[in-house]
């Protein structure tokens, strides 16, 4: 198992945050991005999926929510550095992205329930 440097960990963590935000989108509509990221077999497929997520963020941006995708470019560099062990990077990114997805979802649900309470 690779032991990453702290800067590299930071890149994966931030990328996870971006993936989580993009997958949630505006109402949790892009959840399939998770499945595809998880199913990526081979480093090329994984890279392609990361790029897709980058593109997806633009379409989300058009609907109102902007996502800062710079960490994904650093992530691509990192994947190229550890080509043979890309799956270890994928696992860490997935853990963080699920965490952020869940956190955003919980936050939105909380806000909407507060809003409905006020309306009542």
């Amino acid at each position, binding site marked *: 198992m690779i032991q990453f440097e702290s800067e590299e*960990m930071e890149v994966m963590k931030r990328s996870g945050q971006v993936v989580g935000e993009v997958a949630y989108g505006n109402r949790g509509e892009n959840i399939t991005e*998770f499945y595809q990221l998880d199913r990526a077999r081979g480093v090329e497929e994984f890279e392609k999926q990361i790029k897709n997520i980058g593109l997806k963020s633009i379409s989300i941006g058009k609907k109102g929510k902007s996502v800062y995708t710079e960490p994904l470019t650093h992530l691509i560099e990192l994947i190229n550095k550890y080509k043979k062990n890309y799956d270890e990077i994928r*696992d*860490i990114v997935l*853990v963080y992205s699920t*965490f952020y997805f*869940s956190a955003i979802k*919980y936050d939105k*649900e909380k806000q909407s329930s507060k809003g409905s309470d006020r309306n009542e």
Partner: protein
Amino acid sequence: MEVKVEQYHDWWFDNAIEFLGHLLEELGVNVEWRDGIVFDALNDEQLEMLVERIEGLIEPKLKYPRENEETGSIEKRWRVYLPLTASNKHGSYKFKYLSGFLGKEPTLKKRVVTSLLSDLITEKKKEKICEICSRPTPFDLEETTQGVYPVANNNLKSLNGVRSMKTSFKNCLLCSFLGYIEWLDNIPFVWYMDVKGNNKTDYTYYLYPKIENIQELHIFKEMLREVLTERKYSNIVVMRGERERYASEGYSLLLSLFENMVRNIKDIERLEDIFCDRWICLFIEKGRVRYTNLEEIKIPNIKSIEKIFRKLRKPYSNLIDKTFAKSLKGDIDNDLSRENKYLMSKGIIMDDFKVFAKAFQIRQNCILAGVSKDMLDKLIYSWRCEE
């Protein structure tokens, strides 16, 4: 005259010999630990005390308190998931419910103990060979039951695979005695019951340390005995606020045990010294018969766990136990929550990040929730980041 009970090099009987040594030490007998236990033959008073001690342990170890729904009074009920039920329950003896050595009356118990541990040597020739310990014995052999060795399938046709081909093992008096008293030992366990009366979720996990050197095993188990607190469902309690929480399977149980050890044992220099790296996980499922199976847990990298414990202190109760699986519609899935806890605990113990990360995958339209960001960061950085 010296009595020597030789080591079996087997997880169950080695633990039983250690337990016998522990009981004898409690009675003030001088026990030497070398390839088994060696002590001076017990005198009549010591034999009496040993039987009394065993009798005294039966109720606290094999019964649990339960509130009667009608009267509200607390009753003691047998832990029926254990394979110790006697088929013949006649007589007036208070432990007639139990099979084998444990169900025998004190006078008979004393007779067994006398023939095994005192200097009254029988004149009979040692003719028969025990099929468990392979040693000659002057006594009659008896059928091996699950009470003697929990993974034996002797008396149960349904556990033999081909029903018409019944296996038949026979064991000596010593094996029977050791096997039965091991049920009274202080061993980490958890009894999990999801729905009352549902056999599929009525199961138990026991964790036995596997250490070849019996003296080291004794030192480790003495330390373990201080950590365990007997409760109805488990003897490893994880506190969340004022609520008692229990693990639901073997790996979570092991992780919560480590957590309790770190918390309760003072003056620890290196956690490596208190963590045993080989365990046998015994699983007992309660149904019409008690299905049992074994899993050996060999921790590959104790240093990695040590590193995690140094940073997180309580990885089970502060991180894993708080998580739950929530469907995207908002319902909580208990089965998946339990599976996720299993994956996370197994990942940490086996130093396998892939297994840990599997808990975070979206499965059955459910996502992991309840994770503390601070704890997750600490865990991943201490596990996957260079210092």
